[in-house]
């Protein structure tokens, strides 16, 4: 049996592994890129883990959402993953690891996720409409930024045929 299967598949295993190594949190984009995962599958997986309180999310500067393992169940999952990887590297029989006795021992440590209020852990920005998100700037601010981009681009580069040449 592959250890990834214990976590419900390769994606969940890879996401948990990435989160276990990112103590200060990381974005869905970083996880997908570093682990070579499908972006939408990564996002779905993070949403599931948020619902089960294994993962916490925080919106930081520039409205970016960072994910990290929760202190309780998240860290327990990481510890489980670490011990499992350690055991497999020591060639411990995974069938034994899955035996009823060992399962019972692990079950004692597991939190009852189904009794949690999942609404508390959803990303607050998730259901915002595009109009709401786009209204965060003052009127005309984005237009000015775009106009200055065009001017700066023309100052920095000159075009020859299909090539933009940096003026240095």
């Amino acid at each position, binding site marked *: 049996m592959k250890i990834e299967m214990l976590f419900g598949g390769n994606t969940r295993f890879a996401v948990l592994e990435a989160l276990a190594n990112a103590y200060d949190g990381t974005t869905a984009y970083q996880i997908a890129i*570093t682990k070579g995962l499908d972006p939408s599958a990564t*996002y779905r997986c993070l949403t599931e883990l948020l619902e089960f309180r294994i993962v916490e999310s925080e919106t930081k500067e*520039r*409205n970016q959402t960072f994910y990290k393992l929760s202190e309780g169940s998240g860290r327990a999952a990481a510890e489980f993953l670490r011990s499992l990887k350690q055991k497999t590297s020591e060639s411990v029989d995974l069938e034994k690891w899955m035996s009823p006795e060992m399962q019972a021992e692990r079950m004692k440590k597991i939190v009852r996720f189904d009794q949690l209020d999942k609404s508390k852990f959803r990303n607050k920005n998730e259901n915002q409409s595009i109009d709401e998100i786009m209204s965060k700037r003052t009127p005309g601010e984005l237009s000015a930024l*775009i106009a200055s981009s065009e001017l*700066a681009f023309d100052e920095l*580069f000159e075009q020859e045929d299909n090539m933009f040449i*940096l003026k240095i």
Partner: protein
Amino acid sequence: MTENRSIEETRNRFKTSPEYTELKGERDPFKRRMLFLGLFTKTLKQNGVEAILVGGEAIDIYTAGTFATADVDLVVDNKAITEKFLNRFGFGKEANGLWLNKDLIIVVQVITNPYSGDPEKLRKFKVKDHELRVAAPEDLIQNRLYSAKFWKSNTQRDMEQSIALLKIFADSIDNTYLDKIAKENDIVDYLAEARKYALET
């Protein structure tokens, strides 16, 4: 041990080279990244590695640094050689897999997945004597709108960058191609919103 010493010697040689001195002396972070990209992708090319600039830094170039990014995303066809040269260029690998040069304040992300956009549409930039290939605006718009719709890590940034590219390249964007990739990626609704804002902006 001998290999480590060799890398260290190469690093030291590079750090005293005129190219590195010029890079370090460039105070404008945008120009410094451009100079680095020109020199680095030229080195990769000389060693048989093809590189394409994608992601935030590609948008950064098209917007001349107005929509600045944190890292340089490079799609390469040989990770081992790329990382070897990053090391020689004075970069160190961080725990999150990113490469950081603390002198130049440049962060590089090496991407080995095949380039997902249309290679025929890549735009070419010339930095000194080297050609830099950059992801097409159409593919970057698709990427950002996909991120806005499904990843939601920074929807405001993703929407604004898409709108900026739509606006700046209004005359040269291949709308047929953009519509096609939007449909394939289930982001037709977000593309319509971005176009609406680009018209109003």
